């Protein structure tokens, strides 16, 4: 059982780092950080998220992106259950050095088998996340318009993945 859970956690690979780095940050390098969370951090994440983490979610992977050696942002990936299979979400975000807030720079879908496949990957849906912070709401139908009619569940899966990544990062890497 433990083996299954570990595999579960490591399923969401970052499939196209070169492409995403270039498109999102115009960068070409990154460093991987694997971070474990304490029980207190888990409780804080679950409080902000309004949902429990999966039992296998004990550590999280963040890719610290650099351009010419200077940090320019962070990328993380998440595997969510869509309506017709899994959806792999890639989120690129930056931390504002003045306001100390974490803001989304871009969201990409790197794998899905949804009926609203094109709409889910389209800018019209994904660009709604740009600029959002962990404190914003990500409610599909209210704060985020669904990718297409009938794609509410898929859209909610993406929104939840984005929100989770942002909250986890903010809790595990608190602004100084």
């Amino acid at each position, binding site marked *: 059982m433990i083996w299954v859970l570990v595999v579960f956690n490591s*399923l969401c690979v970052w499939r196209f780092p070169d492409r995403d780095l270039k498109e999102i940050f115009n960068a070409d390098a990154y460093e991987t950080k694997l971070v474990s969370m304490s029980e207190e951090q888990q409780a804080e994440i679950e409080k902000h998220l309004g949902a429990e983490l999966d039992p296998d979610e004990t550590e999280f992977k963040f890719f610290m992106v650099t351009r010419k050696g200077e940090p320019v942002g962070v990328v993380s990936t998440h595997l969510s259950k869509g309506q017709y299979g899994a959806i792999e979400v890639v989120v690129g975000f930056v931390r504002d050095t003045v306001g100390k807030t974490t803001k989304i720079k871009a969201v990409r879908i790197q794998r899905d088998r949804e009926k609203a496949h094109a709409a889910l990957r389209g800018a019209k849906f994904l660009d709604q996340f740009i600029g959002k912070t962990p404190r914003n709401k990500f409610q599909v139908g209210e704060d985020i318009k669904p990718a297409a009619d009938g794609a509410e569940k898929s859209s909610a899966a993406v929104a939840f993945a984005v929100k989770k990544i942002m909250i986890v990062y903010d809790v595990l890497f608190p602004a100084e």
Partner: protein
Amino acid sequence: MNLFKFALKNLVQRKTRSAITVASIGIAIAVLFTVLSFNQGYESSLRNQIQKMGIHIMVIPIGCPYEAASLILKGGEIPNYLPQSVLDEVRKIDGIEIAAPVLIHGIVKPDEGRTDIYAGIDSSMFRLKNWLRIDGEFFCKSDDIILGSDVSLIELSKTGDQIYLPEYARTFDVSGVLRPTGTEDDGFFYIPLSTAQKVFNLEGNITGISIRLKDPAAAARIARRLENIPQAEVITMSELLGTMLSLVGSVKTLILSIVIIIIAISTFSVFNTILMSVFERAREIGIMIATGANRGHVFSLIWLESVLLSLAGGFAGLALAIVASRGIEGIVKKFLPLAPKESVISLRPEIFLYTLGFMLIVGIGAGFYPAFLAARQKPTESLRGE
């Protein structure tokens, strides 16, 4: 101070040189040990896997039979197909217990960096592979799908969920999930054969037929009958096993040749280390002989140093091989035809002893001449510094 301690002290005094020599031997031995362990492990695990499949003969389209059989067993797609009418002819032959057709179709997703593999099957496949267990049910309707256990994890899907094929705009209901088998079966999407033929526009075609015989001893006789069917290529599992092993055998011979060269270089490294040490210690050896040391003792001392150096390298190499074997295995498996999922490296004690014995011989061989040279030194010349 006894001879052993003296030899050890001499080696420790030249730490860097001894360490480099031990490292070079260690690497050579690690490779040798891994190659020998791999050969035994691969053969037995391949044999086990093929026996576990319960398949005695495969009927596949005419082409490269071994590549095709390997692809079918591993789940790959081949561009040729058999007409389904072949299945009816096969099932008429006496002595065949189960003939299970399969249509394999891969959907390559370059924008996602992966390939989904669909297997169109009927209930005979589950009778053939009777170790497969489903959480849920077998297909009840044409748009049911069974997920391999890996697929279920990757798609986060379970019995009762739906799976959509965007490429063919088809929705399937997950009727069951296979329990993990540790084989390639874990990585398939299983759909009814007739549905697969319709969805993938391959009506009337199958990729192959897996056959279990009532009596495995009749394989050659039945294979001859099957060969009379037009468009069909027949391959028995013992032929497939033999071909796989001979393919690996060729690679093994090549690797062993390289290992032998590495070991020869390591032997020269030991020889050079000991010989340099003898030259550097000429004065010390001269004093030993002048103060009454037996020439036999001098010979034994130098020889012992060589043996110790080789054995230290041997142990270091074995430790390295044991620690790194899983990593090496992962790399090797990527290049293997029909790589079994179970371990292909068998760490057996006899290989351990064989490798150490080999290193002992290297030590004895490499140290003989330097020891001989040291023992025949003339104290007067050594002390004069000549």
